[in-house]
């Protein structure tokens, strides 16, 4: 079983649309693979909208805890406010309260309170789902807005996907990643065999491509690159090619800007099923053949 994660650094380069197309191509190809899908973008999860998902199981996700002060037990000494480094204890006219949004759940106040007036309360931070998608079992989640611990939820989703893939001998776990390079991205790439980085030939896209490549290198994950919306800038595309050549990173394909990609999204489908003959679909089929070859060449776990 192999794990492929789709990343980008910059948001909006087309991770989810490309993941959906790859899930279709991987499972429908003449030498088709059995796949498990995971949406690791838990605070803006969109893969379900193009994967014809039927939810079959839903579970609560309990994130961290936050502090709560019992006003009856509180003596008003203010030690909690002095201890807290996150400005999460608010005082008004001698009455102390916790700002639940600022609280990081460190429990420093809980341990310091001489009146035992503080409790740590578990937070329902979201839900996660096991669904059936058109192309295989699908694990995804919805983090409640403004909640913490997205990295922990990403790890949970991926664990569930891997467990099923191992138990039932699936060939591939395909993970739709999140933008950026921080905690949810690090959770998304951990344990991956290969990272597909979707970039675009804009100055911002190239800048963030460099940061995500440094990140995958840092964690020792081999990377390949695909250039989306390649006709936005000829110079930009050349710049990406030069950068990747220097880094020894293979470019597995170039996808032209194609309004059919948005139409497919509006229709709730991957571009490769919605418009088989579109320029983007042609490019994606070539990309999948290359990725499949690279996955085969990776040493088996």
């Amino acid at each position, binding site marked *: 079983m192999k794990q492929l994660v789709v990343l*980008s650094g*910059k*948001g*909006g*380069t087309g991770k*989810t649309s490309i993941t959906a197309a790859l899930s279709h191509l991987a499972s429908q190809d003449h030498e088709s693979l059995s796949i498990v899908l995971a949406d690791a*973008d*838990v*605070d*803006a999860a*969109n893969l379900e*909208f193009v994967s014809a998902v039927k939810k079959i199981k839903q579970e609560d996700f309990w994130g*961290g*805890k936050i502090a709560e002060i019992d006003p009856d037990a509180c003596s008003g000494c203010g030690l909690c406010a002095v*201890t807290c*480094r996150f400005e999460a204890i608010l005082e008004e006219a001698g009455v102390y309260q916790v700002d639940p*949004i600022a609280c*990081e*759940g*460190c*429990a*420093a106040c809980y*341990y*310091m309170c001489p009146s035992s007036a503080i409790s740590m309360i578990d937070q329902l931070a979201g839900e996660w789902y096991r669904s059936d998608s058109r192309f295989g079992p699908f694990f995804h989640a919805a*983090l409640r*807005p*403004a*909640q913490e611990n*997205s*990295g922990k939820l990403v790890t949970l989703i991926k664990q569930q996907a891997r467990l099923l893939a191992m138990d039932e001998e699936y060939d591939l776990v395909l993970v739709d990643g*999140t*933008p*950026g*390079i*921080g*905690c*949810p*991205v*690090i959770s998304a790439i951990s344990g991956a065999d290969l990272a597909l980085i979707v970039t*675009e030939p*804009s*100055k*911002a896209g190239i*800048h*963030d491509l460099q*940061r995500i490549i*440094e*990140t995958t290198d*840092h*964690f020792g994950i081999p990377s390949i690159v695909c250039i989306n*919306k390649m006709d*936005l*800038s000829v110079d*930009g595309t050349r710049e990406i090619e030069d950068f990747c050549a220097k880094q020894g990173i293979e470019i597995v394909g170039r996808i032209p*800007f194609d*309004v059919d990609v*948005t139409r497919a*999204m*509006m229709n*709730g489908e991957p571009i490769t099923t919605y418009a088989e003959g579109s320029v983007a679909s042609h490019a994606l089929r070539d990309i999948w053949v290359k990725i499949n070859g690279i996955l085969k060449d990776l040493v088996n776990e």
Partner: protein
Amino acid sequence: MIIAVASGKGGTGKTTIATSLSLAISEQSPLYLDCDVEAPNGHIFLQPSIEKTEVVSMPIPAVDSSLCNACGRCAEVCQYHAIVVIAEKVLVFPELCHGCGSCVLQCPQKAIEEVPNPLGLLEAGVAKNGVRFARGVLDIGQPMAVPIIRALKQWNVFEDESPIIRDAPPGTSCPVVETISGADFVLLVTEPTPFGFHDLQLAVQVVNTLEIPVGVVVNRDGIGDDRVNTYCQKMGVPILMRIPLDFDIGVAVARGETIVEAFPEYMPRFKELYDRMQELSNARDAGHLKSAG
């Protein structure tokens, strides 16, 4: 006036809007803060000359083994499993530590000190048209963006009271909350596609949780359907600007140009956008005063 530009979905045009907005009000010498510390791009458009830098560190525990008796109290109080005791030895995992200091306070042997662990960098300088610029940059391999954003917001590198434009990261979790909290107005940039629409709804929920006035910019207008419009109308969220789907705008932005420079006809529209946000924020304040009185 502090304005945060956020989105939910990535790549909808936050930085495009935030940089053009900053240039449109350049006579007020605004401060543009790039809070997307994982993937900061504002410098590409505003081209600051960086004059000042500062390292952002988190205090992490360092255990004096001559004083430690491996009692395990530190591991027991740490909520992040950042400090553990294995075979009479204390191990610290810096990337899990939130720097709360609880282990230091609770150690009965007073065996723990704190040492700074660098997480990233703050940079500041003056950019195009006198716009002041500051940004945070998270180090590669570091998971935690929030302490950098917090440090950036508190960095007193420019002291006077001019408008602040905060450019937020994508998503709806802690780095976004840190960026928008304390703002007077949140401008959400969306696109009328199913992904843009879904993430806009989540972003509106976040902003409502923090009770900050909110408005929307519809970018690439015409690409999708009408659901963003219907939703905004239903929720009473004003749509303050529409930018049509235009390949030429995409090409200019890809080259690193701001909209107001590449298409000067947008200059008055961005000025107007700023004025509208100021009015809406003032109206909210007046409403609060009335209801408080």
